[in-house]
């Protein structure tokens, strides 16, 4: 360790400092002036954007005895996390105020969760991977429970906490097996150890399975997905948005670090597991979503099916596949934020717009938001020229490039099934009469952020080149 190591973690230090500053200010500020925390939280994220931007360099640097790494992938993922989190913070204000939840702790916990994500993405040792994951998860558990007077939300937090604890335990067990055999926590060390093996011993395989189980849990892949619908449904829409977008990006980074950087050499061993997880996720996610009447549950199952697609990128097991998976995750996070943004926006005091029927005739109530939702749904269904189409295309191409045609065919067929429930939302919005005639009141800032967020799904679909090449450089 030397002082230059600290230069690498300037964004992390900044976020931590700001979160602590907000915490301290909170103790001295009157509760009427909570807007300040909101603004400070946004300032923190924008500061982090600038610092990450300034700190960025081509290439890769390790710090703190190899426990920390900065590379393009980390910077890109962090960058998207800041943006998506900032957008969700903007959406959250009105929603939280209407429920008397507009408190500094929400934003502080959010910032700590972001810090955990940053640490997780930049982890280069199993120790930091675990600590980053715990920091993120702990913050998320408490955010889910934040609406403590709501039974659903408390129940969701309880489930999330217990199952998440279980997954952490499994992860630790897997890591300790890997450590026990390889004798190192460093991911590069693990990779070196594995490269030297002729065949993989049973403990390392078992450790790998445990690690993948934990990954699958965090991603929400079937059969480790059971928490997803309940937590998405139970927590307040803002937290759901946060879990399904920013946290997904972090978990992608987590998978890349552990599975690819650490255990990439074992790809022939883990590929079969991932194929099972991916096909099951596509199957359960797409089919069960059809039967949902609650839009948050529907989006939960849709997330599960998207995870199936992301896993397809890993299955391809080459830089093309990984970058396709990264492109998929990034664009999913963006469209997901827009989708939940609209769900948050349509909710108001004492009313959650979380039933699909609540969207009936949205076009007649507010045609612009109906249009934005249309864009988002099209993108998720993979209709060209939306960005979701490219994401699916790239992943499928990577899989086909490996000669796994049947997998690609299964994925395409199931995403056709999936298109049904996205289109149903559109049908409800455009062809059904409005039951709810309440006016939709939206601040201009939220309006601008949400509009640009949803239009980004279209814009990236029209001009995907930059992001694709960014993902390619990030992986290689």
């Amino acid at each position, binding site marked *: 360790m030397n002082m230059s190591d600290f230069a690498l973690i300037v964004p992390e230090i900044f976020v931590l400092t700001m979160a602590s500053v907000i915490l301290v200010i909170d103790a001295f500020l009157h509760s009427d002036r909570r807007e300040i925390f909101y603004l400070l939280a946004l300032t923190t994220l924008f500061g982090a954007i600038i610092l990450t931007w300034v700190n960025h360099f081509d290439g890769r640097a390790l710090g703190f005895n190899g426990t920390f790494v900065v590379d393009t992938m980390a910077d890109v993922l962090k960058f998207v996390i800041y943006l998506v989190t900032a957008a969700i913070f903007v959406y959250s204000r009105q929603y939280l105020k209407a429920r008397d939840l507009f408190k500094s702790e929400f934003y502080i916990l959010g910032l700590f969760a972001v810090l955990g994500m940053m640490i997780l993405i930049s982890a280069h040792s199993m120790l930091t991977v675990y600590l980053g994951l715990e920091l993120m998860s702990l913050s998320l558990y408490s955010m889910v429970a934040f609406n403590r007077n709501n039974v659903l939300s408390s129940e969701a937090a309880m489930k999330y906490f217990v199952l998440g604890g279980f997954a952490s335990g499994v992860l630790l067990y897997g890591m300790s097996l890997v450590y026990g055999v390889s004798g190192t926590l460093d991911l590069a060390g693990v990779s070196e150890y594995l490269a030297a093996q002729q065949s993989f011993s049973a403990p390392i395989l078992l450790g790998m399975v*445990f690690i993948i189980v934990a990954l699958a849990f965090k991603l929400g892949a079937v059969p480790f997905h059971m928490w997803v619908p309940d937590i998405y449904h139970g927590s307040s829409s803002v937290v759901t948005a946060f879990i399904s977008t920013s946290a997904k990006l972090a978990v992608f980074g987590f998978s890349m670090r552990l599975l690819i950087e650490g255990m990439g050499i074992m790809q022939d061993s883990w590929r079969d597991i991932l194929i099972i997880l991916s096909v099951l996720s596509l199957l359960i996610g797409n089919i069960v979503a059809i039967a949902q009447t609650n839009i948050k549950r529907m989006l939960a199952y849709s997330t599960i099916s998207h995870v199936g697609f992301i896993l397809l990128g890993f299955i391809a097991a080459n830089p093309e596949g990984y970058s396709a998976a990264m492109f998929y995750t990034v664009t999913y996070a963006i469209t997901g934020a827009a989708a939940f943004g609209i769900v948050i926006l349509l909710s108001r005091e004492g009313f959650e717009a979380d039933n699909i029927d609540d969207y009936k005739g949205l076009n007649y109530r507010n045609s612009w938001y109906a249009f934005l939702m249309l864009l988002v749904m099209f993108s998720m269904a993979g209709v060209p020229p939306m960005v979701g189409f490219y994401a699916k295309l790239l992943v499928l191409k990577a899989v086909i490039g490996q000669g796994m045609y049947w997998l690609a065919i299964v994925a395409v067929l199931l995403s056709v099934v999936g298109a049904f429930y996205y289109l149903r939302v559109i049908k409800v919005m455009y062809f059904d009469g409005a039951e709810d005639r309440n006016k939709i009141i939206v601040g201009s800032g939220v309006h601008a952020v949400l509009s640009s967020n949803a239009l980004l799904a279209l814009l990236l679909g029209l001009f995907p080149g930059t992001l694709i090449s960014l993902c390619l450089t990030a992986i290689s």
Partner: protein
Amino acid sequence: MVEKIYLAIPLLPLFGAIAAGLFGRYIGRSGAHWITILSVLGSFVLSTIVIKHIIFDHASVYNEAIYIWMISDGIRFEIGFLIDELTALMIGIVTFVSLMVHIYTIGYMRDDPGYQRFFSYIALFTFSMLMLVMSNNFLQLFFGWEAVGLASYLLIGFWHQRETAILANLKAFLINRVGDFGFLLGIAVIFAYANSLDYAEVFAKAENLSLQTINIFAGSEWNVITMICILLFIGAMGKSAQFPLHVWLPDSMEGPTPISALIHAATMVTAGIFMVARMSPLYELSETALNFILMIGSITALFMGLLGLIQYDIKRVVAYSTLSQLGYMTVALGASAYGAAIFHLMTHAFFKALLFLAAGSVIIAMHHEQDMRKMGGLKKYMPITHWTSLIGCLALIGFPLFSGFFSKDSIIGAVQYSDLSAANTAYMALLAGVFVTALYSFRMYFMVFHTRDRMDEHTREYLTETSWVVTMPLVLLAIPSIFSGFIFEPIVFGEFFSRSIHVADSHNVLNELGSTFEGIQGFVMHAFSGPVTYLAFAGVGVAYWIYVIKPQFAVDMQHRFNLIYKFMDNKYYIDHLYINVFSVAGRAIGKVLWKLGDNVVIDGFIVNGSARAMGWLSNVLRHLQTGYLYHYAFAMIAGMIALISMFVIAVNI
């Protein structure tokens, strides 16, 4: 820096289109025309800079990708620009004519409720055409190609309350789809055999492609390059309205007049000609394709001109003349006289825009009356329109020293030197075409501006010259219609296009023609030794005799040769063929497939059946989500054990 200029040229009109289209309500009518005119003016000014840069300063050719859209299997899909003399000339023509049309529209559409929408569409049209001509790859070419088609669809059907306008734009769209299908197939063949969409890369592989064959049906071997060229040309036939895909163009007169001028002179129809010239390195390798082009071009040039003789709608006469002139350009392409084709394209752009806008001016003055039988003697009411129309007609028939003279004569001369088997037929057709052109042009001129007044009292009372926004473009277009011919020597004979057009030595007819060239005076003198000029004079003379001296003669002829007249009046029954045979058969097949295939098999069994199955499955599976924590934990542990078993068993056995 140059890159920014190149980028700004198409993007300015796009910006104008978006501003006028999406925010038309906020910026108002004058806002819409100011913003689009200024944006097109901007790109016109930038185009002149590019012309100076490329043509006069001989700057190096710019061929770069601006944006990589995506890379798939090593093939790049890009947006890029190829700026050479051909492009520079084209963007100059497009932006100039478009600018004139924009200004003119202020007057023509003054009272139309869809004012902003119209400006948005024509700016979009300009953008599409600029993207098309500036492209350096087939993908972008196709984008421009389709965008032009879309814009023309929107514009022809601009007055969507009119039944005829809807039919006309549908027709234009469908006929163009037929052409586009060929075009797309052509690009697909290129993609499959050359593995690239980039012009330069494809051209580099052209020699190689010409040695390969493609097996379409069992036993029939086609040369790949011939295949590509003919397929691409089918696309050009649609856009440039060549026989037999020409039927949409006369009907496109249903759109407002400014758009007719834009479609006919500067944008859409020139796309096909431009494309073939751009693809010259491919076409030069296939004599079959060149012969095919010659034949199509000469049929169009002669027979479409003949139809102009019997039209009474002033705009339709001009429309058929466009068809015929496009035939001339196509013939020039077929004879490898690309320079002459582009040159004719340029002069034609000026005088045809002029003729259309003049016809529009007449129509405005006549309160939207288009029938020439109800006009006559307008000379004294509308002097500016009259004189500019006369200039347009003279340029069109190739009267010596007018711009059309130089371009048309060089085409005819070039065809004369061509060794291709279809060249002789084409030459004869073109000669006959000269006479026909002169005849219908001056028939129109005399019927509109001379002879006695045939309009009703009410119209005559208000008959005056149109406002300055209408006449100014006329005058501005009349100038190049007269003088632009004088620059023909470097364009047609010189090395002007040597960087953008490739001509095989054996086909180099322009070179042969150029070797006899001894200055402009010599060219003019030489014209009097050949039949061309006399044929044109004869045409004018006959027109004067029939329509001014003995108006009864035409009516007599019409009765005497009623059968022929009817044949021509029905446009050779091509429309009937399309409507009654192809479309009826197509619809019948479609109906069978719909009833049997769609309703029974696909809808009934596959779609609804599978949807029902999925719905059932979904309802069963959702019950797995019980909500109990220990069920979830149990499922996770069970899943984990299953995964572990896979490995433990595999390792231990």
